[in-house]
């Protein structure tokens, strides 16, 4: 009987930058230094704007933690613009 073997699924992480267009997304693989470098650059650029905050989120959306530095091992990072009391 023929057995089916699945290729291991490559885990990708997502950087999501909320903006007026909804969001901008950047995907990186933890194994690729070039992709991490790109993601880190985008993260730093987004976070350099005044009042911007970033959160590391798990894929289930049950935990969120505010971060100030890029975490290449994060499953998902969401960067959002400045907020204020309404």
């Amino acid at each position: 009987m023929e057995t089916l073997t699945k290729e291991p699924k490559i885990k990708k992480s997502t950087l999501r930058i909320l903006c007026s267009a909804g969001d901008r997304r950047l995907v990186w693989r933890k194994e690729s230094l070039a992709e991490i470098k790109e993601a880190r650059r985008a993260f730093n650029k987004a976070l350099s704007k005044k009042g911007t905050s970033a959160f590391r989120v798990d894929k289930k959306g049950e935990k969120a933690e505010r971060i100030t530095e890029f975490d290449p091992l994060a499953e998902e990072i969401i960067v959002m613009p400045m907020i204020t009391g309404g």
Partner: protein
Amino acid sequence: MVTLTRPAVETNIIFDNQTNSTLEDNLTQYIYAPDTEVTHLQIASSAANWYYQNTNQTTAQNLIIHSADSYLQVNLEDSTATSKALYTDNEFYAGTGTAATNYYNVGIDYGSAASTSNAIIIEIDSTGNVNFKPTKTERELKRERIRNNLIPQILTKRFGAGRASKKSEARAREALRELIGEVQFKRYLKNGFITVNGDSGRVYQIFPGHGMTKVWHKGTLIEKLCVVYCDSSLPPTDSIIMRMLWILDSEEEFRKQANVFPVYQPLQRNAA
């Protein structure tokens, strides 16, 4: 889907060479050019792969692909598979186009929210130029829009989230769906809010846009919190994501950011 005829409609994709190092810099230089011909994209001999070859330039170059279609995702990778920078959806950036001999395989696939109406046809003429066009004609797209408008709405006591009228709102909802899961997301569409349980035992009822966040404790509404983006151009559902993440991180921090409106409870009279 690949055909070998020249398109008769406008393209919605731009291929361009850029020398700048950051995505944002490149994006600001975009000039939307309908029916752009891509002379430097060539068909591989196998016709299964598409090669981008930096034949015209000798200096470092980056290939930028921009799509007006929000769910289109273009994958571009080095033929050596050693490096790949991938921006999904309508922005894509390959950061390693360094030499004239570098090849990239170009493929098209679609995000999770894609439907066939978002697909495009890629057409290659006899000289190897590449053009793009939607898979559906304008007439077909119009009929589809009308058909979608005829979907009956579910009548409930509450107002639901309503139809996503803008593309940005649709993207924000997609992001929320990926965050909170299908069940919670459907509940949001139906009720128009989501609930988040704080570590303190309080339950936060979060509404989109400028809606105040209601704080419940043991079934009683105790206060309302108002937190908004300084930039009002963000879609309403992005506000939900923002409030949810702040609450999950730290309820106290969220409360500090907010304007707090206490809810006055009616006096409890002793029957005795």
